């Protein structure tokens, strides 16, 4: 994950540097805030990787990794199919339309989103 940390950290430093350069060149608030938030978001990801994933040992990070290392049950299982992503998307579309045009419809769609999410979570359990 070293490259991940380097990538996010260098991008964050770039974000902060350009935010500072932008501020002292223009004294314009909107752009400075946007660039500063960009730097913060990237440093947050880098920080997360350093703190939470420092113990991660990925076979893909080793030059001499062999295929046998990624074989077997421990690599996890994949959902071959699920109808709930489609259901949630339909409900989110109705939710957004309802929020603007028809509040009761929006509330009903919000409940549908929650129901679909619940069913998705139940389906995800091994």
């Amino acid at each position, binding site marked *: *994950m070293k*490259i*991940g940390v380097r*990538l996010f950290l260098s*991008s964050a430093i*770039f*974000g902060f540097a*350009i935010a500072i*350069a*932008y501020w002292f*060149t*223009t004294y*314009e608030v*909107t*752009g400075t805030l*946007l*660039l500063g938030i*960009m730097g913060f*978001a*990237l440093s947050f990801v880098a920080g997360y990787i350093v703190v939470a994933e420092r113990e991660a040992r*990925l*076979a*893909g*990070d*080793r*030059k*001499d*990794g*062999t*295929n*046998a*290392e*990624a074989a077997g049950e421990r*690599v996890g299982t*994949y*959902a*071959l*199919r*699920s*109808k*709930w*992503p*489609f259901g*949630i*998307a*339909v409900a*989110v*579309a109705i939710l*957004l*339309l309802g929020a*603007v*045009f028809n509040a009761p419809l929006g509330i009903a769609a919000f409940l549908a989103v929650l129901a679909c999410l619940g069913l*998705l979570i139940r389906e*995800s359990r091994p």
Partner: protein
Amino acid sequence: MSEAALPEPVTAALARRGILSWISTTDHKRIGILYMCTAIGFFFTAGVMALLIRAQLAVPNQSIVTSHQYAQLFTLHGTAMIFFFVVPFAFGLANFLVPLQIGAPDMAFPRLNAFSYWIFLFGALLVMSGAATNGGAAATGWYAYAPLSGIKISAGLGQDLWIIGLLMASISSILTAINMVTTVFIYRAPGMTMWRIPIFTWEIVATSLMVLMAFPSLAADLSMLLIDRHFGGHFFDPAAGGSPVLYQHLFWFFGHPEVYIMILPYFGVITEIVSTFSRKPVFGYTGMVLSAFAIAGLSMGVWAHHMFTTGAVSDPFFSAVSFLIAVPTGIKFFNWIGTMWRGSIAFTTPMLFAIGFLLNFLIGGITGVMVASPPIDFHAEDSYFLVSHFHYVLGGGSLFAIFAAIFFWFPKVFGIKLNEAWGKTCFVLEFVGFNLTFFPMYFLGVMGMPRRVYTYPNLPGWGLLNSLATLGAAIMAVGVILFIANVVASVRRREPVGDDPWGGFTLEWATSSPPPEHNFDWLPPIRSERPTFDYHHPELGKESAR
């Protein structure tokens, strides 16, 4: 291997047919195909709109459509081409290819991936459905500047559907970007270190980071616009202390990176194709990767070069950073030429489209450097010079790369090769048609023809140049019809072409065509960025070890 010998999940997967199997799929390859087919559908729709626009402008004082219909046409054309064709096609291609290129069995979050596709599709349909409403579709351009897009001027339902639809497309892009970055960082096969992943995958990582930084700004902008329109907000209302310039800042903080979001994945496509058909490894692999991130980083700091003429931004800052982007882009051009240099070049259809991309994008890029200079931009702003410039980048660039990608990876996706002779004819028609359409527009712009006008007076030279542009568009349309005929004929013929018809270098060419649901029955050892080449040529493989 007989079907009876296959493990249970695979036989179950093969047995699945019908619409329900597509609705419930979480397989990254099927989702990729859904994205790409949907994107091509929107390309055809937006292409028909472009033909209507060109028919209207073919001669002076034409009246095929009204001014309001014309405004709807160019709004939907731009929105569909940008949000529903070029970007989703890149994400579709990435969905299909990235797990295969890094040796992964699927994306990191398969259900989230499926949700991203469906929310994109419904968002796109909402935007287009505006055309069926009483007041018609949105007619405020693809950037919908406030206060033009405010409730006082654009009260129609079409504008609301446009905002809600794009909000959904933004959510889709952000979720897809999270999925891509996580997949590449976590799910690489053993030995597939970051410095061995193919350039296309690197470009997708850079693109995804840009999406994560830029799209929230668009989502915020659209949400604020919706609040202004329906919930009593005044973010962009100057009479109540709001600022229309704030809308432009937020929009272009997304909008300019969006240009690179639309081109970086296709830089990856071109790199893969140029390398494969030059029979050489990518020249300057590290430079290619670093230049992608340099472009991504710099593009986050150039948004207000679209706002020079507002007089509310710092011209020197944005001009300087815009000029700087030419440096990493130049590195890419140098490396593509370096890859071809003394290579054994095969002029296949994908390679021809890749060369067409290089020529067109060069013209678009150079004129981009020109308009990065405020004095030229003040002259060219809102003229046909800009229309030509961005079409050379996104039409001559991205569209040609999309054709190249379709011809290159069609055998991998469907196990069928498209007809080469028809493909080359299609390339000639597209290349001639494209340049005939858009090169005259540079002259029209310099002559002062403004963009977004639905008709124009018979001024010297304007009629002839516009007629040439319309003729070019018709030639492009013939090329697209030939492409459709090629796909239909090739699919009917169903000639199997084997797993690796081009002698590809990267991991997707090591599996069957089309790949099985779990992607790989076996993986070659990964010891360089060209594992398939190394496997087929063990005597040469060590030379490219990284």
